[in-house]
């Protein structure tokens, strides 16, 4: 089957959502979920660029064992800036708030999310919180690391309180988006679209939204108490005043571990869509993917203790948390095997989104397997707080979430813009990103295993070779990202017209024109044929009326 031979029952091209009104005001105050998705895209991509620059500076500092380009204090501030920016300003909203916003209503045949004005409010709350966080951290020289561990965060002379208030504000945006998406999925599905026919990306966003709504308030509360401790010396988490710092860690990770699944579940949704589309085949098991999504969302709430194996935890508790953490690996493995089985005997078309998904599978496997390793208490005692852990979570978050984000960006680029990027440049960009990523983080596994602690400004000379290798890798990665930015911007302005359904996908979002019209569908959406049914012929035009 070739792409060109795929018939479609797309309506004739409509005035797109982007061309109906063109004033700046019509974008900034739009309640159209598609425009809000695009706004989120620009805001989160800016955060990614900032966080990336911070990371590059950190890597440059590690070119030599001693001081290279910055002071130890600046180093501490930069890794705090990097962590906070990447976690809360990029990764949490990256896929759900951009692609989720743009696609979720279309994938369920709706014209809008349930609460469009709340959606716009969420975006501006995000912008307000992000501005607050960045200004506070920059001017206030925050140096606590992104985890704000007490008692240091209670006594640090830097701008702890304003930064925490900023993150608290961003949290509101996360919660409101989650509420909006949950209600949208429950109440806005097109007639006849049952739960078990929803596209898998929608399922992933649904699972993510549940985590967002239930975990984020706990973070908000913990940060609020740290703020009170810092501002008024109330001491709830300060051992000098009878408080319990380990309790802070419990509450913090009760949010921050599920937050990892806020980052990876949407990525898994993207992978499900891309694999099915580019192998022109239904998922090997739709149900396996749905249930493992919900399984991860649920078990994710019960694993937080594995961050605290060395913080004073009984062997029994550690064993329980370790075993529960490994359950996540089982659900993840179910997904990986389902994806790979979907590819088997499919009509595979190799394009940039699928390359990124292959990258995802390799990196996520690597990250996931090392995750099982660090969930084992006896091993974790050795690796805790070393570069091994840093490499592990970057493999999952960057190797997983970022590659899936790039896959989504290329896959839905024609959907959003109506134009096509160049596959040749796309493949080159992927090669750079993938090899740069590998080069950056494989040396960090070796460093951590050899005993290099994380967050240290200096290191023994024998580690220099691996540190230099990691820094060189980060440059290749950055080059790949810049190249991608360049050719996508070029494609946005000069790319050839993509047509309504350039990938010949059968998923629901491709059953309207690209870019979609303002109300998503001009007529009642045609969702009779399943989203992943590649065996039934399209109904002839006269049967569709």
């Amino acid at each position, binding site marked *: 089957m070739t792409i060109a031979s795929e018939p479609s029952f797309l309506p004739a091209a409509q005035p797109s959502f982007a061309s109906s009104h063109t004033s700046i005001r019509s974008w900034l105050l739009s309640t159209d979920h598609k425009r809000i998705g695009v706004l989120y895209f620009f805001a989160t991509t800016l955060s990614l660029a900032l966080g990336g620059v911070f990371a590059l500076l950190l890597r440059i500092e590690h070119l030599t064992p001693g001081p290279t380009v910055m002071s130890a204090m600046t180093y501490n501030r930069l890794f705090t800036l990097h962590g906070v920016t990447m976690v809360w300003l990029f990764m949490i909203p990256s896929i759900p708030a951009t692609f989720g916003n743009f696609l979720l209503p279309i994938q369920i045949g709706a014209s*809008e999310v349930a609460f*469009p004005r709340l959606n716009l409010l969420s975006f501006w709350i995000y912008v307000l919180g992000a501005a607050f966080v960045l200004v506070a951290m920059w001017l206030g020289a925050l140096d606590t690391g992104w985890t704000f561990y007490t008692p240091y965060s209670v006594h640090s002379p830097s701008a702890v309180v304003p930064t925490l208030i900023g993150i608290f504000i961003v949290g509101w945006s996360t919660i409101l988006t*989650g*509420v909006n998406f949950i209600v949208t999925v429950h109440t806005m599905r097109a007639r006849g679209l049952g739960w078990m026919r929803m596209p898998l990306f929608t399922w992933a966003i649904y699972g993510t939204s549940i985590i967002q709504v239930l975990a984020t308030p706990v973070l908000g509360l913990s940060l609020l108490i740290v703020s009170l401790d810092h501002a008024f010396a109330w001491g709830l988490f300060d051992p000098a005043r009878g408080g*319990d710092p380990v309790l802070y860690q*419990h509450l913090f990770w009760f949010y921050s571990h599920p937050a990892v699944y806020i980052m990876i579940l949407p990525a898994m949704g993207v992978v499900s869509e891309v694999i099915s589309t580019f192998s022109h085949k239904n998922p090997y098991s739709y149900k396996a993917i749905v249930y493992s999504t919900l399984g991860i969302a649920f078990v994710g709430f019960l694993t937080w203790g594995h961050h605290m194996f060395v913080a004073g935890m009984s062997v029994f508790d550690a064993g329980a948390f370790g075993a529960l953490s490994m359950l996540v690996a089982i659900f993840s493995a179910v997904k990986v095997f389902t994806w790979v089985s979907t590819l088997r005997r499919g009509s595979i078309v190799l394009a940039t989104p699928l390359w990124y998904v292959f990258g995802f599978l390799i990196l996520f496997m690597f990250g996931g397997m090392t995750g099982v390793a660090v969930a084992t208490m006896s091993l974790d005692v050795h690796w805790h707080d070393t570069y091994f852990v840093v490499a592990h979570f970057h493999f999952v978050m960057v190797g997983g979430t970022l590659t899936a984000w790039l896959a989504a960006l290329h896959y839905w680029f024609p959907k959003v813009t109506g134009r096509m990027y160049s596959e040749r440049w796309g493949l080159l960009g992927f090669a750079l990103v993938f090899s740069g990523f590998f080069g950056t983080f494989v040396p960090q596994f070796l460093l951590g295993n050899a005993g290099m602690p994380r967050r240290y400004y200096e290191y023994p000379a024998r580690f220099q070779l691996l540190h230099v290798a990691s820094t060189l890798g980060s440059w290749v990665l950055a080059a790949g990202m810049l190249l991608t930015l360049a050719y996508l911007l070029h494609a946005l302005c000069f790319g050839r017209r993509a047509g309504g359904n350039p990938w010949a996908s059968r998923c629901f979002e491709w059953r309207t024109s690209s870019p979609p019209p303002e109300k998503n569908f001009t007529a009642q959406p045609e969702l009779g044929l399943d989203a992943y049914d590649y065996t039934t012929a399209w109904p002839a035009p006269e049967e569709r009326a």
Partner: protein
Amino acid sequence: MNGARHAAHFESLAQQDHATRLGMWVFLGSELLLFAGLFALYAAGRIAHPAAFHEGVAHAEKSIGSLNTAVLLTSSTTVALAVESLRRDRRALSIALLAVTIALGATFFGLKLTEYGAHFRAGIYPGGAGNFFTSHAAPGLPLFWTLYFVTTGLHAAHVCVGLGVLGLTAQAVARGKIGGERAYVLENAALYWHLVDLIWIFLWPLYYLA
């Protein structure tokens, strides 16, 4: 009634009704988790310092706290009756019941402030400050009182938000913007108020009785 039209992106008023109420329920779930963290802190503190927590409860303002429980429970009843009255299109009765609810909520808040004043006069401040803690030196006592102020303070903030929401909704009912067919808007405000009530029902035994 022109107030009964649904927003353009919904197909029917029933769908809008369903979506709005579900949205409130999901949001309330989120709110519960906010307080869950504080309950977890209380549990951990109580396990670590059982005697100090017991002593802390002994110094609580039992009568004001219990009176406030009665006030809040009554207000929850009146707001439920207000919703039911509006459903039956008895708007004047509904507004009157809402006014009673708001008055009771304000009473709760006033009593809460009086209570804080009494604590301050007794030398009890958050963070273990005040001369109460020089005569009562049990470790864990400052923790109890700090938790008390943080938890009841956060609850009182929710009371204020709830009062604002009820006030705005009552105004909309009075202007005829919310009639019997859109009683779910008032029901949502009432749900929020019930949450405030529900949380207090747990705070009362934890900080005043046990």
